[in-house]
């Protein structure tokens, strides 16, 4: 395929993905808005007012960046894992496999779909948060880079999960038993400085801590960890997961007999 045809193919996959999550917006865009609004009400307004300040900001302001990241992570992952597994399940993956679309384009198309849903949900959650608090952006570039890289990393994670999945249970195991605990222990609701040394050290092994803190730095200007290290880790993770996913596509794991 020449560059123009490749671009059309990429565009086609992305449009199909976006059309899919917009068509089922009640399942894809509305739930994170409701869940996060509840977090804002309960943790921010009701409990947060009793907690006082954290990291020099009132509790509500402190948790907003983490909650936005939580929504981005969950939705980027969920979009790709469910969309790709569903086309595997319905065998409509064959539409792509019989076509001349290069594997890199297939992967980039699905990841772009995940990133777009992640970012769209991120914007919705951010707008909702403005009903409860005020936000200023400390460093727009870092904020945008971190949220985009995070969405890419988790979209790739969702893609790999879908490649290996053979039944619907397989696409809920990682989000339930891996992503949710890592996110809750990822410094969304607290600064890891509050933890005892052992738990603080253990938290540093959780990549989500770096993502949440780097994003929080982009908005509030505070972080428990080095922002440079966070960006480096995100980039490294994106590269490793991309190579893993493309290898799976090249060998046809789970999609070609």
């Amino acid at each position, binding site marked *: *395929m*020449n560059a*123009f*045809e*490749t671009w*059309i*193919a990429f*565009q*086609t*996959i992305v*449009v*199909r993905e976006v*059309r899919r999550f917009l*068509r089922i917006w009640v399942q894809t865009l509305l739930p994170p808005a409701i869940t996060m609004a509840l977090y804002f009400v309960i943790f921010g307004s009701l409990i947060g007012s009793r907690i006082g300040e954290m990291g020099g900001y009132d509790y509500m302001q402190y948790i907003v960046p983490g909650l936005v990241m939580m929504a981005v992570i969950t939705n980027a992952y969920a979009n790709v894992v469910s969309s790709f597994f*569903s*086309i595997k399940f*319905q*065998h*409509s993956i*064959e*539409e*792509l*496999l*019989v*076509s*001349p*679309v*290069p594997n890199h384009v297939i992967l980039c198309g699905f990841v772009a779909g995940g990133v777009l849903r992640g970012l769209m949900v991120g914007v919705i959650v951010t707008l909702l948060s403005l009903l409860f608090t005020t936000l200023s952006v400390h460093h727009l570039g870092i904020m945008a880079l971190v949220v985009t890289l995070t969405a890419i990393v988790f979209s790739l994670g969702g893609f790999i999960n879908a490649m290996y999945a053979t039944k619907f249970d397989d696409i809920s195991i990682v989000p339930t038993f891996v992503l949710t605990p890592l996110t809750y222990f990822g410094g969304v609701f607290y600064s890891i400085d509050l933890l005892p040394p052992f738990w603080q050290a253990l938290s540093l092994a959780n990549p989500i801590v770096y993502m949440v803190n780097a994003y929080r730095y982009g908005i509030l200007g505070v972080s428990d960890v080095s922002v440079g290290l966070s960006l480096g880790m995100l980039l490294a993770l994106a590269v490793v997961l991309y190579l893993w996913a493309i290898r799976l596509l090249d060998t*046809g794991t789970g999609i*070609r*007999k």
Partner: protein
Amino acid sequence: MTIALTINNLEKRYAGAQALKGISFSVQQGEFLALLGPNGAGKSTTIGIICGLVNKTGGTVSVFGHDIDRDFPRAKKQVGLVPQEFNFSQFEKVYDVVVTQAGYYGIPASVASARAEHYLKRLGLWEKRDAQTRMLSGGMKRRLMIARALVHEPKLLILDEPTAGVDIELRRSMWEFLREINRAGTTIILTTHYLEEAESLCKRVCIIDKGVIVEDTDTRSLLAKLSMETFLLDIAEPLAAPPALAGFTCRLAEPALLEVDVPRGRAMNELFAALDAAGIRVTSLRNRANRLEELFVSLVQGTLPGGAPAGAPIAAPAAAIAGGKP
């Protein structure tokens, strides 16, 4: 003449089983080939390898000169596949399924829209363009897969049992459509369980069984291998028992319908003379359909005189033919 497809020593080994044992055949541009075989013979595996759905374990495949190992994207551009199972998203609109497929081939939206309209109209689906695919009937779904396979205008169209579960009227109209696009230059490979379909459409037949090709010849030569041909005769007066006609085997399908086996080489005049002598008046005569079916069973059971040696008899070839896949 250009060769549309060349398959050389193609092998596929699944865990513990060899689905293809080094098959070779080629298809000329413009041919209409029937690829026949009982369930599990290796037809769908062969098609899957050509189209990129199955990884081969040995051999080579090239489509219009493009080797799938060296330039699979270019090879894939030449091929359109109508698979056996419905494999489109159940929630997408009919029109979107076709236009999206065109996009995967790098066809711009304006061209894709025009082609989608053309093929959906041609296949009687234009009125349903805004319907979700799950709302279509079985026959419409089959036609949608044909429209989708043609939207990038492939030079080689492969249909894996395209008329399974389709009513007779629709099947005939699909046959006519396939004949038309074949006449227009598209090379077609067809697998089917309806052997009447292969006999009616295809000039060449390739029979595959247990991963090897047991016959590859033109349909007419294959039919010439029949040692016996069966005719159905409507008779004026019903009979209580089949008549004894010297040199012919007769059966009564119904009291007024006589089934007669005529050995190859015997003149029909002799049959009519014998019928005349027995006082039987024939009101109409027709050849029994599915002649190929008898040959097919003979080939896969290895009982056809002069036919290529076949593997061991398969479990239930006749059932496979009559019932299609379970």
